[in-house]
C-alpha cells in the first residue's frame, strides 16, 4: 500500500490529530453556554430536560463516530492509497535535446517540436507508476524535474522547452543521467535521448550506457552558416579596419553562397564563393570607419537552396572607435615638441606658450616645458621637462656635460630604451621622493623620474629634442612610453569578435602574465576561466558580450552566433531505438481514492441528515415575530 508522500505511520498520526480535533470540537460544542435572559418563567414552564451533571459527556456518540470515520476516509482519499504490485515501477531519465540545432527548420515547425511530440508519446507510453526526470541537454545538462510520477507535470515541462544557443554536449548529458539514476532513483529504468544529436567533432567515441534508448529526430542538415566574425584595426590607415569572417558548410553538398558585409547600413564588401560539403573557409574585408557602428555579415545562398538553420546566417558586432588622447603642451618653444606628438593618430595635441596656461582646459596629459603654473591641474597626468623651482619634483643639482649612463628597463618608462653614453650638455638631477622611481641615471643621479599615484607624473631633467638625444631612437620611444604609461586604455589594442555561445578558446600572446588576465561579462562581473599552455578557455552559457583583457590588449567576444554541432551522432547498434510499444497494457495498481472520498462525503451527509440538520434549520426571528403579530392582531369590538 502506498500513500504517495505519506508513510503509513504518518497517515495514522495525521488521522489521530484530526480525530482528536473532531472530538475536541464536539465536546466544545456541548459546553454550557452562559446567557442572561429576561425571565426564566418560560424556560421552566416548558418542562425541559434536567440539568446535565456531567459536562464532558458525549451525548451523540454515533454522530461523533460517524464524523471521525468520515474524516478518516476523506484523509485516506487525499493520501491516494494504491493497492497492487508496486515493485515494477522504474525511474527513467529523459534527455531532451535543446541545443541550438534543434531550432532548425523541419517539415512542420522546428526540430524541437518533433522532439517534444516524440518525448510526450514516450512519457505517455510509460506504466502509470514509472517516474520520469526531464533533463534539457545542450552545452549543459539541466534537470527540469525530479523523478516525477505525475505525467502531466513532465509533459508541461517538455512543452515549455525552447532551443538554446549552445551545442549539444552529449557525453556530459549521458553522464549526468547515469549519475541521477545512481543517486536518486529507486529502480533505474531507461535513459532516453530525444533529439537530432548534432555534436561537435569528437576524437573519441562517446561511451553510452547499456540502458540507453535513442529516439532520433531526423534533420535536413543542409546548412551554411557563419562561425566567426572579427574586426580589428588595419595597419594600412588610421580609419581602416580589417574584418575576417569564417563560414562552414554543414551539408552534404557543395553550396555557392554570397557573403555580404555591411557597416552602419552601408555595404562594406561582398564575396561570392563555393563551399564544399563539410568545409570551412575564411574571408577578409578591409573597410573604413571613423565612427563607431554596427558591422553585419550576412550569408545568402545564390543557387536558391533553402537553409535548414537560418539563425547562423547573420552576425552583428559593434566596431569600437576609441577616444583620442588629449595632450596640452605649454612651452616657450612649442614647435619643438610637435614632431614627437603629431605623428600619433590617437593623440590630439595642442601647443601653447606658458602665458596661455589654463588650469581648467580639458586635457588628459599636460606637458610643462620649463614652466611651473600657479595652479597645477588636479586630474590630468603631467610631464615636467626641466622643471624650475616650485615644481612637484625636488631638484638636487644641475649638471653639465654628463653622460646618461643607464635606463631602468624594469620601469614602465624605461622599457625598451637602451641608449647609453648619450651626452647631455645640461641636465637637472632630481632627489627621489617616496614613491618615485628613477628611469634614467647619470653619474650625478637620476635625471628621469616617474611618480605613480592617482595622478601620474614624470619629470625629465633635460629636453630630449634640445639635446643630443634629438636624433636618437630613444626619444620617440620615451615619449611613447610616457603616453602609454599615463593613458594605457587609449593605447590598448582592441579586437571584436563574434563567436558562438559555449566554450571559447583564446590564444594568448607569449609572455602574458596569467595574473593580469581579466575575463568580464557584460555587467563587468568576472567570469571563471582557465589558462593552459598559452590558451585561455572560458564558458558562456547565454548570448552576450565577454571582455578578455590581457595586458594592453582587449578582445570583446560578441557571443551571439548559435553554436551548431559539426556532425550528427550515430548511436551504437546495441542502443534501443524508438518508442516501446504496449507499455500501457501493463497492469496498473488499484487507486480507490474516488470511492474513499465518496464514502467520506456520504458519511458526513448522513451525520448532517441524522443529527445536524435540526440545529441549522430555524425560523428567522423577523418572520417569527411577524407571525406572532399576525396571530395576535387586534380586532375592533364594533
Amino acid at each position, binding site marked *: 500500500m502506498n500513500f504517495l508522500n505519506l508513510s503509513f505511520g504518518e497517515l495514522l498520526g495525521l488521522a489521530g490529530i484530526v480525530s482528536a480535533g473532531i472530538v475536541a470540537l464536539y465536546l466544545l460544542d456541548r459546553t454550557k453556554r452562559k446567557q442572561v435572559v429576561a425571565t426564566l418563567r418560560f424556560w421552566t414552564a416548558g418542562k425541559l430536560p434536567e440539568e446535565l451533571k456531567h459536562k464532558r459527556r458525549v451525548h451523540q456518540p454515533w454522530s461523533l463516530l460517524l464524523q471521525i470515520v468520515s474524516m478518516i476516509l476523506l484523509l485516506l482519499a487525499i493520501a491516494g492509497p494504491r493497492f497492487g504490485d508496486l515493485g515494477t515501477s522504474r525511474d527513467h531519465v529523459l534527455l531532451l535535446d535543446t541545443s541550438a540545432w534543434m531550432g532548425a527548420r523541419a517539415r512542420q515547425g522546428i526540430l524541437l517540436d518533433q522532439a517534444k511530440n516524440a518525448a510526450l508519446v514516450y512519457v505517455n507510453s510509460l506504466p502509470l507508476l514509472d517516474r520520469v526526470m526531464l533533463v534539457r541537454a545542450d552545452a549543459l545538462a539541466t534537470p527540469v524535474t525530479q523523478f516525477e510520477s505525475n505525467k502531466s507535470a513532465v509533459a508541461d515541462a517538455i512543452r515549455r522547452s525552447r532551443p538554446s544557443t549552445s551545442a549539444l554536449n552529449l557525453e556530459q548529458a549521458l553522464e549526468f543521467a547515469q549519475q541521477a539514476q545512481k543517486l536518486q532513483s529507486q529502480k533505474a529504468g531507461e535513459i532516453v535521448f530525444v533529439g537530432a544529436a548534432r555534436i561537435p567533432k569528437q576524437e573519441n567515441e562517446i561511451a553510452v550506457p547499456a540502458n540507453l534508448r535513442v529516439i532520433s529526430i531526423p534533420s535536413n542538415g543542409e546548412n551554411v552558416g557563419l562561425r566567426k566574425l572579427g574586426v580589428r584595426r588595419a595597419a594600412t590607415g588610421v580609419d581602416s579596419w580589417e574584418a575576417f569572417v569564417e563560414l562552414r558548410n554543414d551539408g552534404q553538398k557543395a553550396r555557392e553562397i554570397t557573403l555580404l558585409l555591411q557597416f552602419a547600413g552601408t555595404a562594406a564588401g561582398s564575396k561570392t564563393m563555393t563551399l564544399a560539403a563539410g568545409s570551412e573557409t575564411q574571408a577578409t574585408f578591409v573597410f573604413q570607419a571613423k565612427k563607431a557602428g554596427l558591422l553585419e555579415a550576412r550569408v545568402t545562398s545564390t543557387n536558391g537552396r533553402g537553409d535548414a538553420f537560418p539563425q547562423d546566417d547573420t552576425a552583428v558586432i559593434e566596431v569600437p572607435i576609441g577616444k583620442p588622447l588629449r595632450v596640452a603642451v605649454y612651452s616657450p618653444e612649442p614647435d619643438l615638441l610637435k614632431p614627437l606628438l603629431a605623428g600619433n593618430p590617437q593623440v590630439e595635441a595642442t601647443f601653447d606658450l606658458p602665458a596661455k596656461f589654463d588650469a581648467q582646459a580639458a586635457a588628459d596629459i599636460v606637458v610643462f616645458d620649463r614652466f611651473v603654473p600657479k595652479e597645477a591641474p588636479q586630474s590630468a597626468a603631467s610631464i615636467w621637462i626641466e622643471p624650475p623651482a616650485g615644481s612637484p619634483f625636488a631638484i638636487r643639482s644641475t649638471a653639465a656635460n654628463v653622460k646618461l649612463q643607464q635606463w631602468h628597463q624594469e620601469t614602465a618608462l624605461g622599457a625598451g630604451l637602451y641608449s647609453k653614453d648619450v651626452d647631455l650638455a645640461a641636465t637637472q638631477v632630481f632627489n627621489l621622493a617616496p614613491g618615485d622611481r628613477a628611469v634614467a641615471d647619470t653619474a650625478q643621479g637620476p635625471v628621469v623620474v616617474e611618480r605613480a599615484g592617482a595622478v601620474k607624473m614624470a619629470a625629465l631633467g633635460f629636453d630630449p629634442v634640445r639635446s643630443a638625444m634629438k636624433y636618437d631612437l630613444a626619444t620617440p620611444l620615451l615619449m611613447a612610453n610616457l603616453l602609454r604609461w599615463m593613458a594605457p586604455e587609449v593605447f590598448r589594442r582592441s579586437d571584436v569578435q563574434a563567436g558562438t555561445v559555449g566554450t571559447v578558446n583564446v590564444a594568448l600572446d607569449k609572455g602574458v602574465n596569467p595574473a593580469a588576465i581579466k575575463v568580464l561579462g557584460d555587467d563587468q562581473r568576472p567570469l571563471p576561466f582557465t589558462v593552459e599552455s598559452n590558451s585561455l578557455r572560458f564558458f558562456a552559457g547565454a548570448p552576450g558580450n565577454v571582455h578578455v583583457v590581457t595586458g594592453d590588449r582587449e578582445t570583446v567576444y560578441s557571443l551571439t552566433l548559435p553554436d551548431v554541432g559539426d556532425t550528427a551522432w550515430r548511436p551504437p547498434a546495441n542502443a534501443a531505438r524508438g518508442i516501446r510499444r504496449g507499455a500501457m497494457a501493463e497492469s496498473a495498481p488499484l487507486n480507490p481514492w474516488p470511492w474513499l472520498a465518496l464514502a467520506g462525503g456520504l458519511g458526513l451527509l448522513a451525520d448532517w441528515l441524522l443529527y445536524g440538520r435540526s440545529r441549522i434549520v430555524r425560523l428567522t426571528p423577523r418572520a417569527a415575530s*411577524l407571525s406572532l403579530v399576525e396571530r395576535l392582531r387586534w380586532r375592533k369590538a364594533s
Partner: protein
Amino acid sequence: MAENGLLIDTPLLEKLERLAIQWQKSLPGVVGGHNTSRSAGAGQEFLDHRQFHHGDDLRAVNWRAYLRLEKMFLKMFQLEPRIPVRVLVDVSRSMTTGGGKGALSKFDYARKLAAAMCYVALVRLDSIYLQPFAEKLGDPLRLGGGRQRFQPVANYLQALKPGGSTKFFDITRDFISRYPQRGLVIVISDFLDDAGCEKPLQYLTDFGHEMILIHVWADEDREPPWDGELDLEDAESGTRVQLAFDDAARASYVTAFDEFALELRNVALRNGGRYVGLSTSIPIEEAIFGPMVRAGAVQ
C-alpha cells in the same frame, strides 16, 4: 440615537403629526383638547337643542327659533376635553436584554415608542404624564401644550437609566393613589413580572382608566436561538438555571411565550383596552403605522 437627540428623527416626527391617540371611553378632562366627548359642554361644535331652563346661559338661547316659534331652546355644544395621557415606561433590568447585532434593546425600543406617543399627544394638545417604572413609580414628567414642548420629553427619556425588577402590583397601587383622575394609560413594557401582571392591570381598569398595552419583546425572548447546554441567568433576580435546550424544548418555550402574550391581549380587550405586541426587530416607523394603527392605539 436620532438627529438632534430627539430619539426619533425629524421625518418620522412629521409623519407622526397625522396621527392621534384614540380611546373608547368618555373621559373627563379640562376643556381645550382636540378629543371629542359624549358630554355636552362649552365647545365649538354644535351637538343638540334642549328646552331652556331657569338659570341657563342666555347666550346659548337660539333666538331665531324663539322668534319663529315663541319658545326658548337652548343650543348645546360638544365638549372637547384635554384628556390626561399617562405613558408608563418599563425601565427594569429585563428591558436591557435582547440588544446587539444591529437590533435595539427593549429599553431603547420602549423609549423610542414613548417618545413617539408623547409627540402624538402633544400635537393634539393632550396632557402628558411620562412615568417610568420598575419596582416602583419613578419621578414623572408632566407636559402639555403643543409640539414645541417635545424637547423636554426627549431629554427626559434620554436621561432614563434601566435598573430594578418589575413589580406591577406595587406600581398599580401607587399609580391609582397618585392619579385619581381617570385617563388613558399607555403601558410600554415586556410585562415580565414573576408575580404576574394580569391582576394589577385589571385593577387599573377597574378604577376607570383606559389601557393600551404595548408589549415589547426581543426575538430571543420569544424564540431563543441557542442550542445545547445552557447556563441561564435571570436579568432581574439573578437566579440561575442550567438546562439542555433542543428543538422540542424550543417549541415548548415558544408556545408558553405565545400563551403569555395571548393572556395579556385578553386582559386588555376584556377591559376595553387595546394590545399591541411588537418585536424589537420591527422598525419603529413600521411598528407605529402598522401594528399600532391596526390595533387602534393611534389613528
